[in-house]
């Protein structure tokens, strides 16, 4: 069936709540009739009641911390952090508490928790509602970070996330909510740590994640017309990271461009470039190019926001530079 990421997530929440009554959904406005600002939790309250669909005050530390405490003691919460930018007001509960429970308690803890959060620029909402903070999340040992680009992946990865016994941060790019694609019916799980080759190619590898996969696909299509065969790898999960998939593709193409919507320093783009030069050096025929947002906040004005986000033209330029090496 064709559906959007919004619908795929909503459907998955319905299915998993039906399957396991320890699954609870919590967050700001999630129990409201419209199912939050983007309608993601629509219909859950009507079906599962306010015992399992829990509206919270505007207190992200308490939301995330309580979800963690609930996970530690027997529930399987799916908590909503409305925008990833709000990580600022709840990082401690993720970084120092939830992510470390299992390790610092010597393996006593299981923390089956999913934190769903919206990420990304492109809606003109400015510096505090448009960030792409996954590098900081992927750096934290003890959590997993999932970042789907397509509705089918959203379904398969969210199902896996809800059934996983480790804490998972599930990032949803708000500029992708409405794009539709075919989604498998019924139970559908995608294992973590498996990238997907979205476009097969032989001249260059383009590694991307979430919305950047769509950009990379556009670039690959345009490159094809120029006779350049680009392979596009969608990481799908950032932690665990499918290093093998990147290295394998690189071994085939010898060239690498990484497209990452986040700020450049200590980004996933840097991480992948570092991987390539540490473990794929033999196969590298040219410098790795990192196409990222600049080292600036996200400006509110749409005209600059458009400049901020990597686009197909920038990816193509990087690819051509790399090939010209």
């Amino acid at each position, binding site marked *: 069936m064709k559906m959007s990421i919004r619908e795929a997530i909503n459907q998955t929440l319905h299915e998993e709540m039906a399957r396991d009554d320890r699954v609870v959904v919590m967050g700001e406005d999630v129990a409201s009739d419209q199912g939050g600002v983007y309608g993601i939790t629509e219909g859950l309250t009507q079906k599962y009641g306010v015992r399992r669909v829990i509206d919270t005050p*505007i207190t992200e530390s308490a939301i995330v911390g309580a979800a963690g405490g609930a996970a530690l003691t027997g529930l399987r919460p799916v908590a909503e952090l409305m925008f990833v930018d709000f990580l600022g007001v709840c990082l401690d509960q993720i970084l120092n508490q939830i992510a470390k429970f299992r390790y610092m308690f010597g393996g006593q803890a299981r923390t089956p928790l999913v934190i769903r959060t919206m990420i990304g620029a492109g809606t*003109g909402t400015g510096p505090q509602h448009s960030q792409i903070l996954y590098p900081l999340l992927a750096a934290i040992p003890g959590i997993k970070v999932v970042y789907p680009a397509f509705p089918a992946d959203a379904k398969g990865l969210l199902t896996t996330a809800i059934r996983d016994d480790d804490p998972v941060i599930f990032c949803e790019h708000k500029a992708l909510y409405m794009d539709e694609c075919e989604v498998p019916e019924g139970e559908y799980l995608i294992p973590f740590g498996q990238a997907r080759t979205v476009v097969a190619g032989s001249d260059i590898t383009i590694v991307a994640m979430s919305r950047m996969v769509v950009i990379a696909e556009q670039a690959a299509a345009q490159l094809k017309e120029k006779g350049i065969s680009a392979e596009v790898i969608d990481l799908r999960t950032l932690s665990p990271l499918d290093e093998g998939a990147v290295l394998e593709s690189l071994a085939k193409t010898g060239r690498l461009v990484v497209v990452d919507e986040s700020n450049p320093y200590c980004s996933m783009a840097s991480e992948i470039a570092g991987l390539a030069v540490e473990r794929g050096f033999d196969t590298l025929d040219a410098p790795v190019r990192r196409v990222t947002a600049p080292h600036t906040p996200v*400006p509110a*004005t749409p005209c600059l926001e458009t400049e901020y986000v990597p686009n197909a033209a920038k990816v193509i330029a990087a690819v051509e530079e790399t090939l010209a090496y």
Partner: protein
Amino acid sequence: MDISPEKLADAYRLMKTIREFEERMRSEYQQGKLPGFIHIYRNQEAIAVAACLDMTNEDYIASTHRGHGHCIAKGCEIEAMLLELACKEDGLCNGKGGSMHIADMSKGMLGANAIVGGGPPIAAGAALTAKTLGNGAVSMAFIGDGASDQGTVAEALNLAVVLQLPMIFMYENNRYAEFTRNPKPDGRIAERAGAYGMPAEVVDGSDFYAMYDACQRAITRGREGGGPTAIEAICNRFYGHFEGDPQAYRDQDELKQERVDNDPLVRFLADERTASLTAEMTSSIDAAILAEIDRGFEVALAAADPTPDKLFTNVYIEYAGRLR
């Protein structure tokens, strides 16, 4: 209460400006002429205006996502504001802030804030500056009823008490946070603030005079070294949470009634203390306001977008690092 006819006229002008400004914002936004999210301040005008009427540019405010009214009350210029809300090069923030981050340092307006609860610690810092320099300035944080639950607000309350800062916590309790009714009874917010150890009162936020009276006392207390004050202003959110939200979740009868009973401008004009303000005066003020707003929109919508190089400016004072 001590208020001159000039000040009354000024209060009227500011409230009415906010009203007209927001109505016009709404209609332009609905026509797709403005970017981002906007949150309309209508019906909370008496709060912002009473709060800022006795402030100077040396006093500070930290605002919220619903900040247009605070800007106007604090003296920001309409055209400069509109240039920013339209995200243009000549806007107060070069178009990089927009509605949720508009600021005007020259007026002591330390920024709208898209992080609920983000402002009070910053306002506490401005109060610390005032206290340290001993210059008699005060600092005010505007805080929604929803925001009042945020931990940062509690921390700012406590810091203000411990350091006896010249600060005012101005809670605007419009009883809604997004689509959810505030589960706290009216007065709970003031009670909490009071329990941190500061004078706190509940005021009818649609009654300009009650608000002005409370604000005068709070500001005087702050200027005289008496420490922080909290005011819980009970009010009503006229429109949806953001523009485009039809607020179907609300009790429509109650909403209608609130709109009728608690229009701060109607109540202000009906009050006998407003008698010095004649119909002639208000209509000339009104005309000037509408002209200013018209001109502002005309200029703002026609103005130039920031040039692409602006993406890279003002990350730092000066910076030679990589800004690819």
